[in-house]
Each structure stands twice: as C-alpha cells, then as structure tokens.
C-alpha cells in the first residue's frame, strides 16, 4: 500500500527507513499493472524505474520518489509524443528544465502520462493513443489535457505527477479526478523543453494528493531559467509558511452563475468554511467568464498555428498528414485569425479584451487578497462527450480561462461529491501570490482547525 502515500508521507517514510525506494516504486508499478489496462493513464512506463530506485540518493529533496510526467515534457531516454502520432516514437535529445530539476532532486520518472494530443482539449479524448478513464468511475472522462497525470495520482499509480496548464489543463483534470492541481503564475516554472501549445499562457505545475505536496513540488520545479526568457527573476519562497493574517476573499456572482446547482452548493459550503477559518468572504463582480472563451479561443488557436508550424517531419517526427482532427482544426482556425484582413477583427481584438480582463483582476485584487474560482462548473462527463463538439474544452474550462489568460496562479482541490464524482473548490491569486493560494488551500484542507 506504499503507492497510496502522499509525497510528504513517502519522503518521511524513506528518510526514517520504514521502507526503501525500490519498495515504493515497486508498489506503484504493481498498481499500474493492475489498473492501467483499464484506466490508460500511462503512454510509457519507465522500464528502468526500479533500477533507478536501487541507486536513488535518499538524502536529496525528492530522493527515491516515483513521479509521473505528462508526455509533453522532453525526457532523455523516454519517448515523448505529446500524445500525437506526428511524434510517434520520438526520443528527445535534451531534457526539459522541469524534469531535469526533478531528476536532480532525486526523483524517479515512473512514466509518461496520456494527454489530449498536443494538449488540445479538456478530456484526454483527443489523444491519438486512446482515451484515459477516470479512476473514480471508468465510464467517465478524467478531464484534460493533463488527464493521464490526474488519473495516475487519483489511482495511486505514482506518488505525485507533473502536468501543464494553458487554460485549466492542470486544475480541471484535478477537479474531475478528485486530486489537487496547482497552476503556478505564468513564468514561475520554466517552459523549456515542454512541447509548446500556447506560449503566452503555458504553465507547468504539479498534480498531487495533498496541498502540502503541491507546495513541495512547486518549490522544486519553480525558478528562473536562462533557457526560458519568460521565467521570472523573482525568488521562490517557502510556499507553506504559516498565514500571518486573515484574508479578504471575493466570490464572483458571474462565476457562480455558470456553476451547476449541486456543485455550486458545495463550493459555497467550502467558502463558508473559509469564513469559519476567520477569513472574510464577500460576493463581488468580475467580467463575465464567457468573454474569456472568445479571447482564449482566438489567442490559443493563433499561438498553436504558429507553434505547430515547426512540425514538418524533416528534422524529426512525421509529416503534417499525421495531425489528428482537433490539431488540424486549431491550426487552421489560428491561421485564419492571423491571416491578412482578419488580424484586427480577431487576434488584435482578442488581445485588447485580454487587457480588459487583466485590468478587471487588478481591480479585484486591490480589494481582495484571493478570489474563489472553481476549476469546473460540475463533475466529470461521460466518455464520448466530446464527439462533434469542437468547443468542448472551452466550455468546460470557462471558469479557469480568465485566470489563465491573465497569467495568474490558482489551485483546484476536492470539496465534495455529486453522484459519487468529485467536485472542486478553487482559489486564484495575483501573479506570484503562490504562497497565499497554497496557504489558504492548505488551511482549508486540514481536518481539525
């Protein structure tokens, strides 16, 4: 049962020599072989994981810990495909900064997890290698695009996982699978070696069993990187230092309007708990999140059309006939939005509305320390739900798109069940307010305060 341990518990157990890293890794591998033929969280399981565990340096910050990594992080020695046949069998020649930091901290990459192809989606159904199923109920989707990572954590196939978020791709699958998903501020964690989706919002981050684990992993992967010019030079601090004061937290009525009634009830109950913890929670107003769908769709498609232009099959990978339907749709819509005569109508206008949304958040954070922001309007949907819905992802991610296009930090954590499926509570904070978001989330998650 070592596979069930949280990261914090596993580290403690290893350091106290209650068990060894090979035992921990073996326990996760057994869980994978038991469940993954049904769940399909992994695209590749690291065949050298057990061997690496035998020589792991337990004195390091993540020494001997098995971590699952989304398949859009380049990993030397493990295939990296971003779940697209264009990159089928591709072996990276260099390491992403995030996985490099994990390895340096002593972690073992137990495998690469399934995702929506190129991270285009919120279901994991657009993966060219087949859907991942939700461990809470395999008839349901895990969410996405980091659906494999969320499912691997929820099914205890790893101690913790890494995902990436462009708009909801960490927080929404975490919500649907009932785990913790944390999106650091854009620029807090390096994008170097992450297969690019929308470069102005791509943010790597952890999916974990507890808030404490998310804080621990973030501290290791965050920081300035000379290979990513958008990373912040601001120092990374201890994300779980205790809260010094009671905070003012806003809850937007426009966001609550979008919630399904039973899920909304649970979110309001969670907000009530924050009040019981001494914080002031107050209804406020934000720009309606429907506008973010328009902005995000245009900006994301435009950046995708540019980023995926490099896949020509000449230097690596297969040619452009290997792109799946969703990737083709996104590349084409982006090409259209950027094309001569339409640029002002779509791309430029969307970037102006983006400014309005950022200004609206600035105003809100002048008054409130944090805002309530659930990652999903309701519980997971059934496998097959994305068929013939080219805007599925945007509609599911409506509540996390505003914070993503503004580059904010946010967390999603379980707050109850509807029809036995997890519902998420979420908080967002100003840029680089990781500490506040994690501290309040951690306070909320503690059973007896």
């Amino acid at each position, binding site marked *: 049962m070592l596979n069930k341990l949280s990261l914090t518990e596993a580290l403690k157990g290893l350091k106290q020599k209650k068990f060894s890293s090979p035992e921990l890794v073996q326990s996760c591998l057994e869980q994978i072989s038991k469940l993954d033929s049904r769940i399909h969280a992994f695209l590749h399981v690291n065949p050298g994981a057990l061997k690496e565990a035998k020589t792991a340096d337990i004195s390091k910050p993540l020494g001997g810990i098995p971590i699952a990594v989304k398949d859009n992080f380049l990993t030397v020695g493990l295939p990296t495909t971003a779940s697209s046949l264009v990159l089928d069998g591709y072996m990276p*020649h*260099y390491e992403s900064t995030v996985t490099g930091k994990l390895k340096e901290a002593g972690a073992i990459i137990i495998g690469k997890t399934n995702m929506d192809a190129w991270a285009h989606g919120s279901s994991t159904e657009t993966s060219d290698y087949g859907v991942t199923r939700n461990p809470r109920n395999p008839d349901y989707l895990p969410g996405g695009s980091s659906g494999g990572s969320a499912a691997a954590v929820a099914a205890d196939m790893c101690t913790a996982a890494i995902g990436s978020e462009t708009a909801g791709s960490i927080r929404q699958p975490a919500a649907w699978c009932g785990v913790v998903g944390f999106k650091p501020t*854009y*620029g807090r964690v390096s994008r170097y070696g992450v297969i690019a989706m929308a470069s*102005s919002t791509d943010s790597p981050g952890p999916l974990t069993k507890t808030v404490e684990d998310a804080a621990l992993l973030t501290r290791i992967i965050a920081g300035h990187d*000379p290979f990513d*010019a*958008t990373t*912040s030079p601001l120092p990374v601090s201890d994300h779980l230092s205790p809260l010094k004061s009671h905070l003012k937290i806003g809850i937007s009525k426009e966001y609550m309007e979008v919630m399904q009634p039973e899920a909304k009830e649970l979110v309001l109950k969670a907000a009530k708990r924050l009040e019981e913890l001494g914080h002031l929670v107050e209804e406020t107003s934000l720009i309606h999140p*429907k*506008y973010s*769908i*328009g*902005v995000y*769709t*245009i900006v994301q498609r435009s950046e995708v*059309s540019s980023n995926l*232009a490099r896949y*020509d099959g*000449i*230097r*690596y990978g297969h040619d*452009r*006939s290997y*792109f799946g*339907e969703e990737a*083709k*749709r996104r*590349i*084409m*819509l982006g*090409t*259209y939005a950027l*094309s001569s005569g339409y640029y002002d109508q*779509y791309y*430029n*206008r*969307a*970037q*102006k*509305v*983006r*400014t*309005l949304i*950022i200004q609206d958040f600035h105003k809100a954070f002048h008054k409130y320390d944090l805002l309530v922001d659930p990652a999903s309007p309701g519980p997971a949907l059934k496998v097959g739900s994305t068929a013939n819905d*080219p*805007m599925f992802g*945007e509609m599911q991610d409506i509540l996390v798109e505003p914070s993503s296009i*503004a*580059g904010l930090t946010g967390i999603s954590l379980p707050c109850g069940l509807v029809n036995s499926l997890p519902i998420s509570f979420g908080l967002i904070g100003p*840029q680089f307010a990781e500490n506040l978001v994690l501290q309040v989330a951690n306070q909320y998650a503690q059973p007896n305060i």
Partner: protein
Amino acid sequence: MDVAHVAKLANLPLKPGEQAKFQKQFEETLKTIAVIDELDTSHVEPTSQVTGLVNVTRGDAIDSSRILPPPKSNNGYFVVPSIFDAQ
C-alpha cells in the same frame, strides 16, 4: 471562411469529408467567439504577454550540446524533400 485556402496556408492535407465538416464547425466557433465584440475596446491597448518583463537578453554564446542529429544526412547536411519537380 475558405477552408481549402486556409488548409493550404497551414500546409495541412485534408481527408475526404473534412472540408465540409470543418466549414460547419468553424462557422459555429466563429459565432461563439464573436461575443467579444460586445465589449468596447476602442481605447484599450492589446496584451500579448503578461510577464511585465522587457528586453530579456542572453550572452551571445554558441551552445552546440543540444544540436539534433538529422534523421537523414549527407556530408553533414540535412536531407530534405525537394521543393521543385525533378523534371
């Protein structure tokens, strides 16, 4: 929206039936995103990045440690498909 033209611009070969299918879907998507036209943006500057960082530079040093070995090479050059007809 001229789907065939955009596919050509994006260098994407379409499968039979995709052109008609995408045409319908793009029209729906464009209708959904038109919601942003409701907001007045006449005096607003566009935002293309959110870091607040400007003019980030690095040293002018060559790092050849991560150069890819080409899948097909000839005398140290990449072999690429020809762009002119052979005749």
